[in-house]
């Protein structure tokens, strides 16, 4: 594997680390199997790309993209909490609706951002100034994004509201008996989760130079692979360790994918990404201990 491929994998690892943190909130904290992310990831990309191309400030565009993601999460949570639709089904409904909405937002299947000024432009300028390649600097930039988000999430989950959210997912009847409005906690947590995923989508589009309507396919599987892979590596006993595991799992996942695609003797190419993803997840399911298997079954059952 070349240095460029290696650093590219690290960069993707940190971006998708945000997706893993979002999925950690929905699947782990709230025990809510949420497929909305397959729609909110491209939603973040579409909103930020469409606004940037239309001449909006890239920071404001990214903020709006995050808000759009939060709204998507709120809709899923609302369908579940207020309309009493099964959580998994509610998330599938939002996901499928977002496919059309993303096409509407962009007006076409993809939007190029290569020539536009994005929130990453200052960093590429900085790289030019320091006379280093931007592919060396970018992993550092995304590392900082991921660390900030991780610590913010740790801080939130250690607050009274954060604890109430954790109780809601762990034992909702007990939570209600202790005065926690569990419905509100699900609304808040799902908004946070999908806001994070949309943020990752916006960063991904700006880093890769385009937004594409199909880029959300399989995000949920990648995110789950990261969450569970990370847990297998770190066996988290505390929240701070669990969030660290999400990011670590994401990096390991992308390194594994990069290795598979770059090993010439296997003959895999970029279009085989989803196949490799599926095989990696299948392997995780089959491997000894198979925590993954239990987790997936539990997720589908609830």
């Amino acid at each position, binding site marked *: 594997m070349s240095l460029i491929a290696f650093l590219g994998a690290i960069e993707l690892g940190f971006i998708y680390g945000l997706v893993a943190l979002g999925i950690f909130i929905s699947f782990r904290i709230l025990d809510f199997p949420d497929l909305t992310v397959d729609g909110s990831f491209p939603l973040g990309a579409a909103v930020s790309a469409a606004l940037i191309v239309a001449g909006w400030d890239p920071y404001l565009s990214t903020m709006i993209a995050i808000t759009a993601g939060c709204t998507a999460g709120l809709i899923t949570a609302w369908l579940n909490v207020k309309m009493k639709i099964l959580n998994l089904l509610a998330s599938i409904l939002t996901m499928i609706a977002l496919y059309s909405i993303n096409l509407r937002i962009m007006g076409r299947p993809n939007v190029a951002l290569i020539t536009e000024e994005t929130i990453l432009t200052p960093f590429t300028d900085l790289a030019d100034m320091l006379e280093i390649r931007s592919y060396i600097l970018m992993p550092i930039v995304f590392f900082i994004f991921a660390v900030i988000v991780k610590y913010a999430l740790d801080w939130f989950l250690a607050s009274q509201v954060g604890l109430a959210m954790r109780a809601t997912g762990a034992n909702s*009847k007990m939570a*209600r008996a202790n005065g926690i409005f569990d419905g509100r906690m699900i609304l808040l947590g799902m908004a946070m989760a999908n806001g994070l995923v949309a943020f990752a989508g916006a960063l991904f589009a700006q880093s890769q130079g385009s937004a594409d309507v199909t880029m959300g396919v399989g995000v949920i599987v990648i995110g789950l692979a990261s969450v569970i892979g990370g847990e297998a590596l770190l066996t988290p006993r505390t929240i701070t360790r669990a969030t660290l595991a999400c990011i670590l799992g994401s990096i390991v996942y992308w390194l594994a994918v990069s290795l598979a695609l770059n090993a010439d003797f296997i003959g895999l190419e970029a279009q085989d990404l989803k196949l490799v993803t599926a095989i990696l997840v299948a392997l995780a399911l089959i491997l000894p201990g198979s925590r993954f298997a239990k987790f997936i079954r539990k997720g589908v059952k609830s």
Partner: protein
Amino acid sequence: MIVCENLRITFNKGTVMETKALCGLDLTVPKGQFVSVIGSNGSGKSTAQNAIAGELPLDEGRIIVNDIDISKWPAPKRAGLVARVFQDPLAGSCENLTIEENMSLAYMRGRRRGLGRSVPKSARDEFREKLSRLGLGLENRLGDLMGLLSGGQRQAVSLLMASLQPSSVLMLDEHTSALDPRIAAFVMELTRDIVAENNLTAIMVTHSMRQALDYGERTVMLHGGRVVLDVSGTEREGLGVPDLIQMFERTHGEELSDDSLLLG
């Protein structure tokens, strides 16, 4: 003080599965009274507790706590007035949270939760002090996960949790029935002490007639979703299990068939 007026709940209304769980239940418990509630399976004991806690909507009737009509309040809002201990030791706490986090959840019952730290330092000292009275050594295990404790330990902690904040009504739903006899006795003594110390208004549902007569100052029997027997004061003193059965059969003209009520 809690007043239940003509509580009615029917499950699966209009279907072949229709079950009348509560059929006009009336119960008034004055402030500071400890009432034990007995009744066979299907008599409406648990339904009544869930209705008071707000987990089940009423078809008819009113629930009034401290002169406030809470019939339409959602469960979390009622939690400020009503504290609960569940039958299942696993139901009253979160096994994936630590002991102090669980206690902290209960510590904030009825209060506004913000972005302050989940376990404030001042609260931690209070938790330690409360736990030490159990004599189980839990005061040194505040950071342990709740799931590591035995059923009896969890139930004892649940009881402490329910008394961390003042409540207008404490509801105990067969909270010792899942424990072995020795631990059950320990939890019952703890219940008696906590209720007395805090002068709590308590409604304890139990499956055991013996327990119902031994604890509290008033015993109520439910049958078919309403109160069929209500003894307190001198009438209750010296009453044994056979007397209770006789009283039931006399007032109701029906034979008590549920053997489980006779046990213990």
